[in-house]
């Protein structure tokens, strides 16, 4: 019966809303991680749907590396103001200043790995017992084996070989004191699903996702933004190009795509015809074959 049919996006939406409500019901003090990227924007949109007309019954947390695109912060603050949600910001700089994290050196220095320290400290400080993240299984091969409800020990570590079986739509969020969960409500979404959903729901995005003129330079075949936190090598020169972000991390690890895509429709066309994964531009994944698995084991997003 066609009357009782929903398309794949509505089915993914229903699944994610179910997962988010399950988190609110099973945990005492959950938090939703928010980076200002499209995945966390969609996740937050789903959370608003899950509890409407009530406000989202948990806080958001942004782990701020200090190396942000200004557009991301602007977008974040405006969104919080419009929705009445609360966003806690934890700074990697604070972890460095207190000696818990050590800044990497050299041209490819990134605070990406240091975020884990700040994240785990933030969870402990606020006594969060579950942290929802916008990770998707299609992003990377270690993520393909991640559960919706992912158990972490008292060190925040992931043990991929000892994961709880997860069947039907029954989630087991039971844990001992000091342990927590990472929950991934949009596990089953692909990059394409996220874009199509943003279009279907007319969700506003940071301007970085659309084409704009920017000062960039080319490092190892990837276009990087010329922002104050970047140091150029002698052979690298600044050019002005029409670019956009396909994925937004912090400035040091976000590769820009040469693109003239100006609308969501353009972006969807572009994604459909692209021949590299969105993390292909992410310097943080290129470090080794199991870079993501190693970071996840330590407690990364």
């Amino acid at each position, binding site marked *: 019966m066609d009357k009782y049919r929903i398309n794949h996006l509505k089915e993914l939406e229903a699944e994610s*809303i179910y997962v988010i409500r399950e988190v609110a*019901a099973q945990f005492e003090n959950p938090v939703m991680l928010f980076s200002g990227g499209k995945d966390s924007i969609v996740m937050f949109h789903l959370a608003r749907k899950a509890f*409407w007309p009530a406000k989202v019954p948990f806080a958001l947390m942004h782990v701020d590396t200090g190396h942000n695109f200004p557009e991301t912060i602007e977008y974040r603050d405006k969104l919080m103001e419009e929705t009445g949600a609360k966003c806690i910001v934890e700074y990697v700089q604070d972890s460095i200043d207190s000696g818990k994290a050590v800044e990497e050196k050299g041209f490819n220095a990134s605070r990406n790995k240091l975020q884990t320290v700040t994240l785990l400290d933030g969870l402990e400080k606020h006594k969060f017992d579950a942290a929802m993240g916008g990770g998707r299984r299609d992003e990377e*091969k270690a993520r393909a084996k991640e559960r919706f409800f992912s158990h972490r020990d008292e060190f925040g570590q992931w043990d991929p*070989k000892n994961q709880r079986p997860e*069947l039907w739509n029954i989630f087991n969020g*039971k844990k001992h004191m000091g342990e927590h969960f990472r929950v991934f409500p949009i596990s089953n979404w692909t990059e394409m699903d996220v874009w199509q959903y943003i279009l279907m729901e007319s969700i506003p995005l940071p301007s970085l996702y659309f084409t704009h003129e920017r000062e960039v330079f080319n490092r190892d075949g990837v276009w990087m933004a010329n922002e104050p936190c970047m140091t150029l090598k002698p052979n690298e020169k600044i050019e002005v190009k029409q670019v956009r972000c396909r994925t937004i991390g912090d400035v040091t690890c976000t590769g820009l795509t040469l693109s003239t895509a100006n609308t969501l429709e353009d972006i969807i066309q572009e994604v459909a015809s692209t021949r590299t994964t969105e993390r292909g531009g992410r310097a943080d994944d290129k470090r080794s074959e199991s870079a993501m698995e190693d970071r996840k084991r330590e407690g990364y997003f």
Partner: protein
Amino acid sequence: MSGKASGYLDMELLRFTTAGSVDDGKSTLIGRLLYDSKAIFEDQMEAIEKASERSGHEEVNLALLTDGLRSEREQGITIDVAYRYFATPKRKFIIADTPGHIQYTRNMVTGASTANVALILVDARQGVLEQTLRHAYIASLLQIPHVIFCINKMDLVNYDQITFETIRKDIDAVASKLSVKDIRFVPISALNGDNVVDRSEKMDWYDGPTLMYLLENIHISSDINHDNFRFPVQYVIRPQSKEWPDYRGYGGRLASGAIKVGDEVTVLPSGFSSKVKSINLMDEQLEYAFAPQSVALTLEDDIDISRGDMLVKTNNGQPQVGQDVDVMLCWFNERKLIPRGKYVLRHTSAEARCMVKDIQFKMNINTLEKDLDDKDISMNDIAKVSLRVTKPLFFDSYNVNRITGSLILVDEGTNETVAAGMII
């Protein structure tokens, strides 16, 4: 919206599971489906090429695509369930790729629990093996509506029709003992792509559909139970704001059936009745809702309802209510089932404690025979047991409702999920 951007609004979601061992070509088949549907990107392909070179393979090893964890790559085996995604203009597919060895039965069960379709690979040279039987049994136990047997490596038996027909007959004989609603057979060569996406020129005797055609067209919208409305209450939404001082919504996902504004509902366990006042999904006011949608319902009357309660339609079939349930249990944990042991039980949004009262039999999943004497239930075993629950559950038989008929057991000491149960 332009053509390409709006086309996705008609796409359906299909979840399928694949079970198989190292040698039967499962990884090659998945690689083929991903590759032919252009779901493999250049940088992924480059990474696999590099990895294949490092581990000494002459050709690109597509299996490396699915082996995600370092220990899996080192050992060359799949340990855990891996989820893969691809899409064609008609459907989005989610593959739960599971290892096929007997010691990974629990992973197969996990992958099967949400699947619409099971792909079972059979090596044409070997025919029906113990493993084929085991996979078919799990598909039937988990009530996967459609099972497609891919008779693979047809290239190694000269694309011989008789070989295919013999295997088909052997499986049919076994299938008559199982309860699978829809069984299909496709002769393929995953390696060469015969009958996977494109029709094989070498098997003109086969006039059935290709595997991809089946995956794209198999009728799945009737797999969902649209008969009896079941709404486990997941979360009570009370804004208590100036704008919404009295709003009281019940958040949940329809487990089955449909509901419309004005329908009379009964609340379990209290037994009170009321009418549906509104169905909300954010600011959308829906006239009706159906499984598997997530919505919020408001009722005409103010009744005390909380998480773990269930709303059902007053005028159609009611669930069973009781503290004694018989289940087919699949055991997941290294610590064995303790007879008369106590566990936490989770069923829909309800949680209770339960005791394993009786172990009726253990299933030999290689011969499909019941063993009435062996009561030793350890990891990967499947057994029929009787549970006594501390409070009444509202349930249906798993055969008619995969959501209200399923449960898990959690160890009270370790908090691990130790078993999955299907209510008989």
